[in-house]
Each structure stands twice: as structure tokens, then as C-alpha cells.
């Protein structure tokens, strides 16, 4: 982890597809475009984490809603973060969330049938509602990237819109989106039979 001189704490930067949770006095940060980041925390246990994900582009038109193969990728991204927080002492019933992202940064003109940022936003609110995780605050949509700085011990998030780095970000998210599509949203190794 590099040291962030502005806040005087170690900083963990996470990219698309990553997640990180901590019960220590650190900063977890990311730069977001059309992806979603959820800051998830247990105030009582003083532990929290941040992820950065997007749903893969649906393969068929009828694949929508919480039951789609695309959504399953999002559910998985959330479960990985939740499990990491529980392992560090958090309780599922105490979890609260702050939600960010879903801006129209990537050029999705070639896939005009879907509104990817909207699909991501609908997914995350649907998921949090189904899991009874309260949303304390959110900032979603629009067209500007967001810089997120999360303090897991304090359950605090600093967010600002970013006008710089936008072309590099769009490229990184585009690469991530392609990778997801190719991995078939569920290729984490074949089933093992004992």
C-alpha cells in the first residue's frame, strides 16, 4: 500500500473488478465511470470495504433482472466483498452501504440496445433491497467520472467528480467490460466432483 500524504494514512487503490476490506486505519480509493462502487461497512465492528464492478453485457435480450446471468456476476462481486467484511469481524445484519457510479463514460454506441450504466444502477439497488442492506447515501448517473475515497474505520466516504483522466478511465472500463464478456460471466473453473 502506498502512503497518502494528504490524509496521513496508507492507501489501497482498487481498479475494475477488484475489492478490498479492512478493519484498520487506511484509505480505500477508486476512480469510477460507468462501473459501480459500493462502500459497505459495519459501524459497530468498525470494518468496511469497497468494490468496483460492472455487469457483463447481456448475451440475449431476455436476460434481464436479478435472475440473469449478468446479474449473477454482480451478486458475486457483492458476495466477495461481504464475505471479506464478515471475515474481518463484521456482521451481515449490521451492514450499511453507500453507492456510487453508473455514469455514462464508456462509448456504448455500438451496443445501443442496452443502457449499461442504467442496468448497473438498477442491479445494485435491487440487490441491496433484496439483502436488506440499508443505503445511507448514494451518487449515481450523470456523465462525469467519480473519485471515491473511503475510510473504513469511520464509515466515511469523500467523493468528488473528476474531469481529468476521463479518456484513460473510459479505456480501462472498456477493456474490463470486454474481458467480462469473454469470460462468459461464469467461467471460474469447472465444477469439481470428489
Amino acid at each position, binding site marked *: 500500500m502506498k502512503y497518502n500524504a494528504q490524509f496521513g494514512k496508507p492507501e489501497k487503490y482498487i481498479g475494475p473488478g477488484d475489492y478490498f476490506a479492512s478493519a484498520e486505519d487506511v484509505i480505500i480509493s477508486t476512480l469510477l465511470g460507468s462501473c459501480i462502487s459500493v462502500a459497505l461497512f459495519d459501524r459497530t465492528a468498525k470494518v468496511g470495504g469497497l468494490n468496483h464492478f460492472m455487469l457483463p453485457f447481456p448475451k440475449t435480450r431476455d436476460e434481464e433482472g436479478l435472475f440473469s446471468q449478468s446479474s449473477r*456476476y454482480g*451478486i458475486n462481486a457483492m*458476495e466477495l466483498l461481504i464475505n471479506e467484511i464478515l471475515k474481518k469481524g463484521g456482521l451481515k445484519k449490521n451492514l450499511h452501504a453507500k453507492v456510487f457510479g453508473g455514469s455514462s463514460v464508456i462509448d456504448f454506441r455500438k451496443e445501443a440496445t442496452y443502457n449499461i450504466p442504467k442496468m448497473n444502477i438498477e442491479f445494485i439497488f435491487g440487490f441491496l433491497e433484496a439483502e436488506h442492506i440499508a443505503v445511507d447515501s448514494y451518487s449515481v448517473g450523470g456523465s462525469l467520472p467519480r473519485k471515491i475515497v473511503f475510510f473504513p474505520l469511520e464509515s466515511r466516504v469523500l467523493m468528488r467528480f473528476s474531469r481529468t483522466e476521463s479518456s484513460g478511465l473510459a479505456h480501462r472500463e472498456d477493456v474490463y467490460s470486454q474481458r467480462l464478456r469473454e469470460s462468459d460471466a461464469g467461467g471460474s473453473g469447472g465444477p469439481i*466432483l470428489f
Partner: protein
Amino acid sequence: MGAAILVVDDSVSIRQSVRFILEQSGYTVFEAADGEEGLKRLSEQKVQLVITDVNMPNMDGLTMVKKIRETDGIKFVPILVLTTESQGSVVEEGKKAGATGWIVKPFNNEKLLETIKKVMP
């Protein structure tokens, strides 16, 4: 009515999405939110397969698997573990506990259904 499957997971979203796929394929689905509830369900309801998560509150999935293997009447039911855990040591623990198979999330519909057919009596 199709064969009965018990799905044990603390995440409502995962239970619902697994239920959706299984019901589409004609299975009857029962749900439980943790290992304790899973064992209770199994004492009331005969099922042909158990699908369980690992990390859950109250009683985790692998403890439940061990208890199933010690309980007369249900000890031979096939159990598939469906989890985010892919680490070799945890998979090994699952094998020792008595699981029949291990699937890492996010799962693929076809692969899940294929595996179910392979292990169902």
C-alpha cells in the same frame, strides 16, 4: 413434481437466482438461510440433493455437511457446495467434511444443471 433440492445460502439474491434456474428445469426447491435452518429443513422434508454456501452466520456450510453425514436418514444425500471460496485448502476441507462436489461462483446455468444431473441419485 420434480426431484426436491434444498438450497442453503444466507444471500436472498443467490437463493432466488438458484431457485429460478432449478424451477425452470422442473425441480422442486426448498430454501434455508444457514446451516442450522438447513438441518431443520432436512428433518422435516425429504430432498434428493442439497446445494449449500460455505460462509453463513449461525452454522457455516461445512459444519452442516459434517452434521448431515453423521445423521441417520439423511447421511447419504448428495451435497454440492456453491461458494465464492476457491482456495485449495478450503476445497480440501469440504472434501473431508463429506461434500459431493464443489462449484465456484459466479456459476454458469448449464454447468450447474449438468453437475446436478451427475450427482443426483
